[in-house]
């Protein structure tokens, strides 16, 4: 029954079958589309190969190549936590099928397990994409045997279980107080923010706790070694340690032993989770079902200024993004959270280490300015990959997307208005990154301005391309906003385009390394000005054709 329920929940959350005009829409991909996806996937693997190889080689030089496994596992682990923070409340409490599920003759644990399974399946998908590929590259580079691959697969499968149940349990504790909350939307936003703060505080807390028990030297050692950081994680998440150890050992007996230990700890965790969840989940769930926002009469101040259409439109887009908790958390906050986490990582470093980093970067700035400036551009492109405003601009409208077709505003203008919020989000994150750069390095303001302009040029093209992809593959038939911003395959496109941008930066920097930083930056600027003009012309000329799927 739990398996069947999982299947139903997964299907309903994925919403693969859409019905349009009473016709079952069987998605049929053309050969060109399949080729395009294959090429993009190959490109993604290429970039991963490039980065992983570089990292492995660097680590190999100091005989610490195994640290790469720790790094990948750590990254996957934190991604699992972050993803569950975002998904747990929505999946557990705000799924549209909640009230109909409650009326069915199901046992409480079956519902809880099925919901948790859906979260886990989503995490497995992340682990395969983000974790498995670099680890396979590692295996190929170091000629690892079959046992390595088996332990990697087991590790990636078992790793997310504990984080998922812990985060879910925290969300259940928070939601069990939902009776006092009248405003469902604001509450949804509030709890997600609290969860996010908890996770950030927790990760910083681990470091702080250790800083109190260790000497400065030990602390420096711990922070400079990613392997030592694994030790910290082992204390709080024992399964993490078991799984990493099993890969490192490359021994069948150790693998079996560590896997059994992981399963045992996970099993105890799941049992505790189920016991607590049965008490907490339904209490909060029933609270959330009957906590609809009360209609209130308030006075709205009328602004005297006459606004231009563009401003009105963009303002409307921003208002909807900010007011809807799901869109706010998934589309807007990443633009601020990732750079803030970036700041956090810098500020948890000790003074000496910070000084060390700053000095070496300043030295590099003198000898290889292009590398530093291009590095900054690349970092900002990395953050741009997590902003989902443009890629969901059409899909967010859902069944009401036809609105854009019957209002008296040319479609191409609306397309431009719809990408502006994405560019604005990029500007925020760019400013944060540049602020950090200015704090750490003696970079001239002119250089920062040039880097800023180039980043924005790159982001404009990324935003326009994402919008085109959303227009070509809109997800308009959905019951919950969550389906648009999470269970939407289109979300891979910002990553692809961002990676392409990073690739272009690396390519220009590598091939033109004999030229000055400014020449390299000007060339990138020219490429993107040209690209933006071309994409704009495409949007203008194909404005009607692009909107064909909106009907």
């Amino acid at each position: 029954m739990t398996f069947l329920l999982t299947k139903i929940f997964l299907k309903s959350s994925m919403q693969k079958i859409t019905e349009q005009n009473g016709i079952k829409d069987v998605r049929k991909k053309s050969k060109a589309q399949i080729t395009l996806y294959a090429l993009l996937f190959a490109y993604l693997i290429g970039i991963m190969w490039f980065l992983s190889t570089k990292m492995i080689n660097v680590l190999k030089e100091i005989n610490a190549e195994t640290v790469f496994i720790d790094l990948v596992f750590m990254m996957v682990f934190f991604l699992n936590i972050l993803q569950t923070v975002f998904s747990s409340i929505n999946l557990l409490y705000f799924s549209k099928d909640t009230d109909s599920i409650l009326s069915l003759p199901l046992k409480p644990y079956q519902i809880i397990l099925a919901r948790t399974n859906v979260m886990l399946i989503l995490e497995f998908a992340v682990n395969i994409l983000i974790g498995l590929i670099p680890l396979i590259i590692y295996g190929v580079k170091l000629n690892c045997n079959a046992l390595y691959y088996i332990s990697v697969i087991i590790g990636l499968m078992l790793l997310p279980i504990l984080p998922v149940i812990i985060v879910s349990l925290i969300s259940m504790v928070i939601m069990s107080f939902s009776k006092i909350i009248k405003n469902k939307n604001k509450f949804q936003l509030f709890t997600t923010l609290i969860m996010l703060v908890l996770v950030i505080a927790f990760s910083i807390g681990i470091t702080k706790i250790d800083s109190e028990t260790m000497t400065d030297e030990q602390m420096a050692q711990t922070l400079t070694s990613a392997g030592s950081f694994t030790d910290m994680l082992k204390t709080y998440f024992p399964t993490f340690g078991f799984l990493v150890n099993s890969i490192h050992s490359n021994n069948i007996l150790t693998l079996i032993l560590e896997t059994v230990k992981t399963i045992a700890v996970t099993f105890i965790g799941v049992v505790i989770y189920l016991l607590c969840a049965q008490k907490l989940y339904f209490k909060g769930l029933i609270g959330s079902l009957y906590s609809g926002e009360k209609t209130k009469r308030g006075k709205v101040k009328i602004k005297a200024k006459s606004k231009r259409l563009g401003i009105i439109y963009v303002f409307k887009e921003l208002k909807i993004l900010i007011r809807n908790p799901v869109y706010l958390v998934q589309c807007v906050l990443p633009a601020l959270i990732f750079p803030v986490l970036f700041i956090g990582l810098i500020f948890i470093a000790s003074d000496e280490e910070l000084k060390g980093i700053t000095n070496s970067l300043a030295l590099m700035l003198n000898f290889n300015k292009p590398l530093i400036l291009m590095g900054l551009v690349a970092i900002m492109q990395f953050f741009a990959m997590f902003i989902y405003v443009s890629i969901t601009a059409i899909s967010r409208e859902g069944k009401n997307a036809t609105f854009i077709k019957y209002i008296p505003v040319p479609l191409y203008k609306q397309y431009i208005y719809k990408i502006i919020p994405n560019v604005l989000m990029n500007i925020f994150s760019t400013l944060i990154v540049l602020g950090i750069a200015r704090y750490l390095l003696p970079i001239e303001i002119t250089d920062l301005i040039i880097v800023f302009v180039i980043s924005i040029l790159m982001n404009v093209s990324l935003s326009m391309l994402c919008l085109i992809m959303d227009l070509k593959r809109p997800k308009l038939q959905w019951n919950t906003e969550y389906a648009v911003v999470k269970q939407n395959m289109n979300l891979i496109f910002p990553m692809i385009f961002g990676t392409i941008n990073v690739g272009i930066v690396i390519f220009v920097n590598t091939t033109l390394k004999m030229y000055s930083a400014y020449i390299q930056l000007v060339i990138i600027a020219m490429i993107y000005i040209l690209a933006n003009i071309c994409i704009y012309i495409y949007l203008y000329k194909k404005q009607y054709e692009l909107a064909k799927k909106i009907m």
Partner: protein
Amino acid sequence: MIKVDKVKKKFIKYKSKTEKEEFLANSNISFEANDGEIVGILGPNGAGKTTLLRITAGILEPTEGTVTFDGLNYKDNEIEIKQNIAYLSGNTKLYDTLSVYELLKMCSDIYGVEKEKAEKRIKELTKILNMEGFLYGKIANLSTGQTQRVNIARCLVHNPKYYILDEATTGLDIISSQIILDFIKEEKKKGKTILYSTHYMEEAENICDKVIMINKGVVIKTGTPDEIKRDTNTTNLRDSFFSLVGGVSNEE
């Protein structure tokens, strides 16, 4: 005047992953709707009413045929036509995180209505459509009837000339339906051209000056309700429809 001339709309229907076939949602549909006239588009579910109205509203492009508004077509005067259209589709919650007032204000801004005129119009529509009780409430929290009244208000906030209303009363209680129907009748008196699709035959009989009956994408009868009843020798439009389709409606 709205003139629909030999409009045809072809869709591709996928029977399986590999098998597809073309089908006509609308086939050679022609009619005219004059100023101050309510033209009812009648037919069962799946008859092609929504497709026809979407083509008329400029959302879909016809495969063949043209739609003109006082002689203007979409190809050359798209923005001008859209500026004068009110299009209402089903019962959906547009931008449900906004309050009713915010939505109406936003729509009047998009349609370029001057601030004072917009305020006056919002006040007027609020009164006519009985929305005083929830004007500042969030759309997400409205009932079906309230949502539909808000939808009508946001379509009409710019005081358009042509109304294209797709199943405006479907799923509503009799009080909400009556408010909307009375409102449509009043607008007709102001000389507006109204296309009104419904599958409620009795409703059409009450408010429409002219009726276009559609079944399986084809016009099966056009005329005033009285003419149709007379020609089919029936006493109401429901019986007329059954008489025209041979007793069974829209078999798939």
